[in-house]
């Protein structure tokens, strides 16, 4: 045997129940026996979504998908396939799910092993600027299937069966939303894709569109068919020039192939798409503000009801979904709602895309089955915390979400569990925070963002976030006073209860969740003037220790000339002059400067 193999074992709940652990031991034993251990790499994956055919094993290269395995089968796979290079036909599963392509190529890397890519199934695999690549991977087959074999109501029923929920953050059941819009009796209806991704540190929608624009188009065309709309609009922020360029190309190519425009795929169905650019206001991600913005008005939310499904764009029934939701639609149609609902947890089906960022080894864009724990995401996929630091918290849901400390690491990722823990799913931002970060400072960062993005319509949001920001600023400057924490809690509670839209209702979340989980850090800042992470510059000082050799490097580097001392003698820092920029600390080669 010359080839190196990578075997992926499915450790989804169902495969585990069907004896995967035992098979894994048998495999191990066999590899040992034949001396193949260093030539076969074993990976574990989360549920591969073929539970009825479990236990599942994938052998790469070649992507041979084995199912229904028994102990003797594993022995045979090792002897026949691995040693003699002859795959065993009777054990191979022939099912061709859309997402399988991803595992065909990436299933052998640990970073991808726990992932399952449905929305991002083609991202990083195909050339996004060439429709042939998408067509070759069963692209637009879902649309054709809907147009040929399904009534509009049939499409909606399939979505209801799938249990798919809105991926923009709120998690509203997609099938219901489509039903409401379809039920409206109106000749003119609209379909909108919300690609106004604004969370700091989030790039799920951008990557999805840049990597595979056609899946979004296909989802939207199916949406148009299901609800009876002929016009769709993609609202995308102007800051994403490449995504816009690729969408434009994709729309042109789809038109050339008769997939957009009149009589799609030689049927009676007509539908077309256009792109509208957003100017980057965060609040325009809120659906009613987004609609106002498309209409040419100022991007401000309005009270609901009426919901857009009843009265949306230009007062017409409008179906508005997020990029990731749209990207899931073709898979639900081709592979079926029942299959889709076999992935995930009881109330949250399918997968979720996250932008994993912050203090984690493998930052990146990931898609995991619902129910994956935060620990698996951070340590198995993310590779843990770099530089030997310890985990402090994870911030989910962007500026609308909360920070969860270590005791919540085993929380499964789904809409309900995250909400119970005190955070939200949000659109998919995930920022890992280590011991070097100050929680008050983090809360201040997010609040500063929402505060400046508040549209100003509701006083509690406009003024309240400003006051909260002022209080946080003074706490980080060591000027906090007793009662500040309670003031923050009261203001936060009030803003949540009295704001019109999701921006205001969620703006206090980062502050409230850090107070709940890291109250002692707030108290230390206020009472003891200590920032334990040594981040808040007003609360730290730099001092020279005895390791100083008097080289003078810090003295030359100091921008305010606060350091004095003779050559080859210990230097000192004048605390009244020091601006705590930290340049001396990073300049010193002898670790002679302490941050205290």
């Amino acid at each position, binding site marked *: 045997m010359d*080839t*190196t193999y*990578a075997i992926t074992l499915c450790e989804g709940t169902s495969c585990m129940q069907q004896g995967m652990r035992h098979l894994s031991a048998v495999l191990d034993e066999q590899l040992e026996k034949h001396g193949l251990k260093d030539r076969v790499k074993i990976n574990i994956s989360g549920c591969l979504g073929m539970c009825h055919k479990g236990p599942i094993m994938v052998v*790469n*290269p070649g992507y041979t998908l084995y199912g229904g395995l028994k102990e003797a089968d594993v022995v045979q796979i090792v002897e026949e396939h691995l040693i003699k290079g002859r795959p065993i036909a009777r054990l191979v599963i022939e099912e061709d799910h859309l997402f399988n392509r991803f595992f065909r*190529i*990436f299933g*052998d*890397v*640990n*970073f991808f092993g726990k992932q399952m890519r449905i929305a*991002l199934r*083609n*991202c*990083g*695999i*195909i*050339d*996004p*600027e060439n*429709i*042939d*690549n998408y*067509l*070759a991977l*069963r*692209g*637009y*087959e879902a*649309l*054709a*299937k809907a*147009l*040929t*074999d399904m009534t509009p109501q049939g499409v909606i029923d399939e979505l209801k069966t799938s249990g798919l929920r809105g991926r923009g953050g709120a998690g509203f059941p997609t099938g219901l939303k489509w039903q409401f819009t379809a039920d409206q009796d109106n000749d003119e209806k609209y379909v909108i894709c919300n690609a106004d991704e604004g969370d700091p540190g989030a*790039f799920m929608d*951008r*990557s999805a569109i*840049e*990597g*595979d624009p056609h899946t979004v188009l296909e989802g939207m065309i199916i949406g148009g068919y299901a609800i009876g709309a002929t016009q769709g609009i993609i609202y995308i922020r102007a800051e*994403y*020039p*490449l*995504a816009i360029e690729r969408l434009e190309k994709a729309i042109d190519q789809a038109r050339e*192939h*008769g997939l957009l425009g009149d009589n*799609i*795929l*030689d*049927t009676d169905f007509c539908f077309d798409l256009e792109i509208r650019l957003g100017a980057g206001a965060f609040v325009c991600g809120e659906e009613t503000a987004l609609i106002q913005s498309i209409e040419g008005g100022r991007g401000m939310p309005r009270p609901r009801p009426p919901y857009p499904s009843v009265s949306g764009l230009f007062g017409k029934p409008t179906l508005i979904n997020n990029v990731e939701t749209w990207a899931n639609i073709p898979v639900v149609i081709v592979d079926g709602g029942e299959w889709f609902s076999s992935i995930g947890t009881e109330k949250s089906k399918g997968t979720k895309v996250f932008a994993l*960022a912050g203090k984690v*080894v*493998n*930052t*990146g*864009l*990931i898609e995991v089955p619902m129910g994956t724990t935060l620990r698996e995401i951070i340590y198995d996929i993310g590779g843990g915390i770099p530089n030997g630091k310890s985990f402090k918290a994870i911030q989910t849901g962007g500026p609308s979400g909360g920070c969860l400390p270590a005791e919540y690491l085993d929380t499964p990722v789904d809409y309900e569990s995250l909400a119970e823990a005190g955070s939200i799913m949000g659109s998919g931002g995930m920022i890992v925070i280590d011991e070097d970060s100050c929680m008050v400072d983090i809360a201040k960062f997010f609040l500063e963002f929402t505060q400046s993005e508040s549209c100003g319509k509701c006083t509690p949001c406009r003024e309240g976030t400003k006051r909260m920001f002022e209080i946080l600023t003074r706490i980080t400057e060591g000027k906090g006073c007793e009662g500040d924490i309670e003031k923050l809690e009261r203001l936060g509670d009030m803003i949540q209860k009295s704001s019109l839209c999701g921006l205001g209702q969620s703006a206090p979340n980062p502050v409230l969740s850090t107070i709940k989980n890291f109250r002692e850090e707030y108290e230390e800042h206020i009472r003891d003037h200590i920032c334990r992470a040594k981040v808040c510059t007003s609360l730290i000082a730099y001092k020279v220790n005895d390791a100083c050799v008097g080289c003078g490097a810090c003295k030359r580097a100091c921008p305010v000339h606060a350091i004095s001392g003779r050559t080859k003698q210990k230097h000192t820092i004048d605390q009244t002059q020091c601006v705590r920029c930290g340049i001396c600390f990073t300049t010193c080669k002898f670790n002679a400067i302490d941050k205290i």
Partner: protein
Amino acid sequence: MANALDVIRKKRAEAVGRIISKGYLSNKRVYVGMATCEMAAGSKEVMKVFRDAVTQGGLTDVYLSQKGCAGRCNLEPTVEVVEAGKLPVRYGKIDAQKAQEIVDKHLKHGQVINEWVID
């Protein structure tokens, strides 16, 4: 009259035909990550090296394509080499100079440059 499913099947067959006619069945396929993030990390220069190698550098039996983001933000730009019958090799943090080395060593002589491989 053909129904929509028949139409799309025909389109798929034609699409596959066009992809193959562009050399997809070459012994080696090279994919360069070209999303905004990859480009910011320098993937355009990397792409140019491979393109020049294919158009002027005498590199044959190689299918070159761009791709979207595979999610490895900290290792961009990424380059993937898929060789018939072998495990795909993914390189991370590739610049123009490294790309040239991949052309010279891996693509021309089959030597995988292990130190840049993502695992």
